[in-house]
């Protein structure tokens, strides 16, 4: 991981000195442990701020649709897929981009570390990592944890760890995981409908409608979001269970065939709601019905922007 930092700085210095790009979007070390901040570097003397470790979960593709000029961006597997989707949706063009690809072994979930530390979770002051072991330290304690158990949920089932599109890689490609992505979705699907309704009501019960999940998502770039519309107002703005549920359903539906499961929504949620349970169902259906995976192939059209005359329609009368 730490060798990635060196390599990212080296590439950024070269790009900025040669005036190949106007800026480099990457991460800098956060002021608190387990959170790194996105940063835009514009001068080569600032590149020492750039940093990489296992807490760089934020999807930097989120900053691209707003960017003018040429930019280099540090991209993990999921980020690079998001970039592909943004390019297909004409939000950014390839010649504006220099993609610094980062083969990723999964990002870590600070909430899981807090849970592991227990009562003193919020006192963690430092997390070091070597050879798959995390050393979590705080005032008066130190703990060794096995890295792979603390991955973000989406990273644990990731099947695209390597960037799909890049100009340069910062390290060797990592092996891809062979995992069953939809185990939890199938478990829910097998429940009777009342139980499913109860499950999802409980899931979003604590939602405070802060829209952090929307803001963190690289694909929520509409100039006016449906939740802000007032004439007509399609979705209620309160935290009434119906309004909350309608918001979550529509938010997820807008990501059908686009979501690359980068986990930004879940990471951003201040209440720790597993909102990926909605988007992942749509991802599964799109894959099963139309054989499409978002952001993997640049040439294809998104599944809801195309059709086949013989598409499945078994329930249409």
């Amino acid at each position: 991981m730490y060798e990635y930092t060196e390599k990212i700085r080296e590439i950024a210095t070269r790009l900025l000195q040669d005036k190949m790009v106007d800026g480099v979007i990457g991460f800098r070390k956060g002021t608190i442990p387990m959170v790194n901040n996105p940063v835009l570097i514009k001068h080569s003397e600032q590149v020492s701020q750039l940093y990489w470790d296992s807490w760089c979960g934020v999807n930097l593709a989120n900053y691209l649709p707003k960017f003018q000029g040429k930019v280099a961006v540090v991209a993990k597997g999921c980020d690079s897929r998001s970039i592909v989707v943004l390019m297909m949706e004409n939000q950014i063009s390839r010649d504006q981009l220099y993609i610094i690809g980062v083969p990723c072994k999964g990002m870590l979930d600070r909430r899981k570390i807090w849970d592991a530390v227990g009562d003193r979770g919020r006192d963690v002051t430092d997390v070091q990592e070597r050879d798959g072991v995390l050393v979590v330290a705080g005032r008066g304690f130190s703990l060794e944890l096995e890295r792979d158990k603390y991955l973000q949920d989406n990273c644990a089932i990731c099947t695209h760890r390597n960037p799909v599109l890049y100009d340069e890689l910062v390290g060797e490609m990592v092996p891809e995981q062979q995992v069953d992505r939809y185990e939890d979705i199938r478990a829910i699907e097998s429940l009777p409908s009342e139980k499913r309704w109860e499950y999802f009501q409980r899931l979003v019960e604590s939602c405070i409608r802060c829209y952090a999940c929307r803001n963190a998502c690289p694909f929520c770039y509409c100039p006016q979001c449906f939740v802000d519309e007032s004439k007509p107002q399609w979705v209620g703005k309160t935290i009434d269970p119906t309004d909350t549920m309608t918001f979550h359903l529509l938010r997820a539906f807008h990501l059908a065939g686009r979501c690359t499961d980068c986990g930004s929504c879940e990471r951003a949620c201040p209440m720790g709601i597993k909102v990926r349970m909605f988007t992942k169902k749509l991802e599964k259906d799109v894959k099963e019905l139309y054989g499409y995976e978002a952001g993997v192939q640049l040439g294809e059209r998104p599944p809801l922007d195309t059709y086949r005359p013989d598409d499945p329609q078994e329930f249409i009368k």
Partner: protein
Amino acid sequence: MTDWEPKIIALLCNWCSYGAADLAGVSRLKQPSNIRIVRVPCSGRVNPKFILASLRKGADGVWVSGCHPGDCHYIEGNYYARRKFVLLKKFLEYVGIEPERLHFSWISSAEATKFAKVAEEVVEAVKKVGPARYLVKREVEVE
């Protein structure tokens, strides 16, 4: 509960199903009176939020009907609509909405008898699951 009658919102394409509803009427075909029709220019115009908004405002069922695949007035609107509806229906079922509340059909403007028949089926299906329980916005009661 015996005298309960469902309210059903029907989003009908102007170029086919709406015409079929009209023809069914002038042909004096017997059909249930639970359907409230909203005329839309194409089934592709139907946004998922229309369907959720109908449920939210207390509709017991929603029925969307458009032209047969290949017969769209706008050439391909119903093909896009089909992908949207298939995903939406599966998705709403997944979160626990009863499948009997959502209906989709292809009815051309000549198929008045099919319209009356499907209307009957839709109403029967919704009657079976009873009044809407989920996603209905309950107004806050003020004394």
